[in-house]
């Protein structure tokens, strides 16, 4: 079992490590910046109050004056919620559509395996980048914070990464569905980027308005790094919703692909 997931997962290791290295460098830069930002004596919270509420909501800005609030806004809201969400949706979008388009899928499907299994294992292989970045980054954050003489609650740090996994999986599931539904790799990738970015924007814009329930469609509603790091509030039901949605979308993608005529 899991031959495809292992094979594809292996091929994702190198790229995942390179990406994790880049994120580690960015993280180190943010952490290193923080003491001088703090020491400048600028009232960052007053500065944030001048922002439009949608922007504050989009980046989950609570308090830029503490290391937790600073990291939540600069690193997690931007890199995790937006960039990694986009990356996973984009990667997932190429899994099926790319192979169908260039004929590799014909070769895969000549094997005595079900189409559901191929789709399912392709999805599982995306756990490689998710796990790699979520294992390496908290170590870099923790060491960095200690090195600059600050402190951060280890439990909150672990939680902000652990709870990002359902979020990132749901982004990947969305990309997978588009990969099955759209026949051209490039088109599936663009659709995935558009979908994640659009959902991110919708959730930010509708927040605090009458349309707020619409934001419930966006996975960003269920993962809030600043709530975890600043308030120590873990949204476990949000994580459960994201996992449930992930499972539902992956099952639907499998069902869809199993019935599709590849022409």
């Amino acid at each position, binding site marked *: 079992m899991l031959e*495809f997931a292992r*094979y594809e997962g292996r091929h994702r290791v190198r790229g995942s490590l390179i990406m994790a290295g880049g994120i580690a460098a960015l993280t180190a830069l943010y952490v290193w910046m923080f003491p001088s930002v703090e020491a400048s004596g600028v009232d960052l919270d007053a500065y944030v109050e001048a922002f439009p509420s949608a922007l504050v909501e989009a980046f989950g800005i609570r308090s830029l004056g503490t290391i937790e609030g600073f990291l939540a806004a600069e690193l997690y809201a931007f890199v995790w919620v937006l960039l990694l969400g986009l990356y996973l949706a984009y990667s997932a979008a190429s899994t099926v559509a790319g192979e169908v388009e260039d*004929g590799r899928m*014909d*070769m895969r*499907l000549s094997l*005595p395996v079900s*189409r559901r299994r191929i789709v399912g294992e392709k999805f599982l292989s995306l756990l490689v980048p998710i796990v790699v970045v979520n294992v390496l980054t908290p170590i870099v954050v923790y060491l960095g914070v200690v090195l600059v003489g600050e402190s951060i609650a280890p439990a909150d740090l672990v939680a902000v990464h652990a709870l990002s996994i359902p979020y990132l999986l749901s982004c990947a599931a969305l990309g997978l569905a588009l990969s099955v539904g759209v026949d051209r790799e490039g088109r599936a990738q663009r659709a995935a980027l558009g979908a994640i970015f659009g959902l991110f924007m919708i959730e930010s814009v509708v927040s605090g308005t009458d349309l707020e329930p619409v934001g419930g469609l966006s996975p960003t509603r269920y993962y809030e790094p600043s709530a975890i790091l600043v308030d120590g509030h873990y949204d476990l039901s949000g994580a459960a919703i994201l996992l449930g949605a992930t499972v539902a979308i992956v099952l639907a993608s499998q069902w869809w692909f199993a019935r599709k*005529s*590849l022409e």
Partner: protein
Amino acid sequence: MSAIEIRSLTKDYGPVLANDDLTFEVEAGEVFGYLGPNGAGKTTTIRTLIGLQSPTAGTATVMGHDVRDEGELIAAKRSIGYLPANPSFDLDATGREVLDLHASIKGDERRAEILEVFDPPIDRPIREYSSGNVQKLGLVQAFMHDPELVVMDEPTSGLDPLMQSRFNEFVRAEKRAGKTIFLSSHVLSEVRRVCDRVGILRDGRLVTVERVESLLDRSGKFVRVRVVGELGADDLDLDGVHDPTANQIEAGPELSGIPDDETITEVTFTFTGDINDLLDRFGGERVLDLDLEEAPLEDVFMRFYGEDPAADRDAGTANPTAVTAEGGDDDA
């Protein structure tokens, strides 16, 4: 039990009817050639047999399993090898990695043996492969699990002549070992060397299914006769003479001994009748030279397809011009 059974198989792409009510069988243990020009619909049939695409109507079974039922087909695939028209692999992987993945799922009892026949550089990334090496890797994966039935779409494309003859030899050995081979081609001379029977497809329709020998019999002989005297093409009033031509020629050095003022006629035609009738016909002539050769299969092919594919097209058939234009090198 037939290895492949195709029943009223139809695939309608809308503007193009790629497979039009096809019915034929491939017997266990035979090598069957599926012939037709590019765009005839060969790939459509093959991809349907592997379960990649669904028929519009009709169905097919491989090793007794219905191709429309994924569960059944998975069981059949354990004993099927498949080589697609343009085999495509992960470019970053090495040949070995791909074969290992295939082996982990379908087995590789014969991998080492087949790698000696077709020898792609399996430790190099596939990105660096020539098209011939990609084709060889495709052949290795198609045969390495010792399947009972191997389905190949244009298997010799991209192979150099040496590899092609090695492939032919390999296919004949597989047949002797009792394996069933179904292969498509648009080159007849390639198929006649390995196939027991051929099915000819044109514009999605099956033109004929017959034994290669009877196809060759029907194709007849190519005849060239040189006689002394004047002879017209119309003078060959003999059953089985096709496309006769007659030309007066100069007596060359090979015809020394013939007086210069003597007329010599060279007659050429395709002959499908009885050779004895032919000899009788020229019995009264002074024959200088007589050549009898097997007609090139390309000529046979032309008889089925006609010089101009548009000329003998049936009304109501899908537009073959469009198929060719859109299909390029690939079948629709």
